[in-house]
């Protein structure tokens, strides 16, 4: 088990080196991707600044808390893109074109390979910038934020990324059933919109749903809560349970998809 983990880490490092050298060949794309990120962040910031011109707080989240939440949302997006962003939506193209055949022949776990093959190296820059900004904002936040908050936040944040990965990958896997599911990206961006708003705007059954069956609030909102309002170990345990379940479901769906895959176009 330990050996396998080490092997996969080495393999990922090789993917990283390869992706970095590929990306450095197209330096302009590197800059343009950062430009897109900046526009995306700016748009969301503007959206909430308009909202806050009409209201002082969104439930538990004050304006300062929402800004921290936004930075966490951007950071989630940035880290997700770094590890998985260039891979999840390759699934549709690979299945449609039959390129998956080549991948399946490789002596490596196919799910690992397809999930981690390309690393969006440009995201390192946005991740560093956003992390710095988050540290600064939490430092000047009116209420004290202790070390334990950061620790629990980090665990919750990592699980949030895995939940996001599972959702995006599961949607991508629909191609096995629909033969071509090019709208997967669009569908995912609509579904993940729920994670880009603080959970305090939702109420009742919907809020419960977002913390359980459709765990969008566990992607950014819960980590933000852990950081700002302190650890909630019950919710952390629930997040661990959901994350495990989501990952198991991803493996199951991927295997079921492979059974259905008939390599039609290759």
């Amino acid at each position, binding site marked *: 088990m330990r050996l396998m983990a080490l092997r996969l880490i080495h393999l990922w490092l090789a993917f990283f080196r390869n992706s970095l050298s590929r990306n450095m060949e197209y330096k302009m794309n590197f800059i343009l991707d950062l430009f897109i990120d900046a526009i995306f962040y700016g748009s969301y910031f503007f959206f909430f600044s308009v909202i806050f011109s009409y209201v002082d707080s969104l439930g538990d989240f004050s304006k300062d808390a929402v800004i921290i939440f936004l930075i966490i949302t951007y950071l989630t997006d940035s880290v997700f893109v770094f590890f998985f962003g260039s891979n999840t939506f390759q699934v549709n193209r690979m299945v449609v074109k039959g390129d998956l055949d080549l991948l399946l022949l490789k002596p490596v776990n196919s799910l690992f390979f397809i999930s981690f093959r390309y690393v969006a190296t440009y995201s390192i820059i946005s991740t560093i910038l956003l992390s710095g900004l988050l540290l600064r904002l939490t430092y000047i936040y009116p209420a004290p934020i202790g070390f334990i908050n950061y620790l629990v936040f980090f665990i919750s944040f990592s699980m949030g990324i895995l939940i996001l990965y599972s959702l995006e990958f599961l949607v991508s896997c629909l191609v096995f059933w629909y033969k071509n599911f090019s*709208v997967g990206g669009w569908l995912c961006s609509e579904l993940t919109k729920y994670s880009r*708003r603080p959970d305090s705007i939702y109420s009742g059954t919907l809020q419960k749903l977002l913390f359980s069956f459709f765990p969008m609030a566990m992607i950014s909102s819960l980590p933000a809560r852990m950081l700002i309002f302190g650890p909630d170990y019950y919710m952390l345990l629930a997040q661990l349970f959901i994350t495990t379940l989501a990952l198991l479901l991803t493996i199951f769906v991927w295997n079921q998809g492979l059974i259905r895959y008939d390599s039609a176009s290759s």
Partner: protein
Amino acid sequence: MIKKYTAVLKINWIHALEYRANALVGVVAILSGLFIEYQIWNLIFLSQGVESIKGFSFQELMIFIFLSIMVGQLKSSWHTSGEMIEGIRTGDINKYLIRPISYFNYHFMMFIGVNSLYYTVYSLLLLVTIIVFPGLLFPSIINIIGFILALSISVFLSYSIYYIMICCAFWFGEVRAIIVAYNLSMIILSGQYIPIRLFPDNVLDIIKLTPLLYLVDFPVSIATGRMPIEDWGFNFIVSIGWCIIMWFIGSLVYNRGIRNYEAYGS
């Protein structure tokens, strides 16, 4: 000549019908987007205890956002612009250069054709809304006519703006990042999720100097009866003026670009 372009429209209409899942995702996107906005504005109206915000009652605001999301989707282009950029990059554009066909008109028909399925589905959705919420949309027949005209202008204007950006590919090769950044910023700035008139005054003053006002806000304001009929004439003249300006700039950029074009990919 018209026959030539209606044939393009027909082909793309048939092609769009093959991917009915797109329309389904489109409907999910509208309803889901509206649902999230409903949650936010519901919280704002309740917490502030107000009956209206800048002249919008809660129900009016929801209808306005609903229609804005719909118009926003009809005027946006991911598919056609992607294909046009790819064409310039790979040399596929050559086939338009040797045929008696206008590059602008051909892709404009393609732009409408690709979105044609959405027009049908959204019209049905609109019809249901009119029946369920009588009086909130289209106060009179003239508003329906005005809306259709303003929507046509919005679609043409939007395409003309895309066309200018796409033609930059003659110099820069890959301008996809500009299109993505434009699409992302337009979601907020054109007023798809928050009506433009709720923006801060200084931002609104700048937007009034740009064609952005005529992409979403103008058709939706006519449909909801929010714009007095005596203001229509002036706004129609200005929006048509913007269409001519954008079309002219597009033609200029295209003509310059085509001289620069060396058909590398062909």
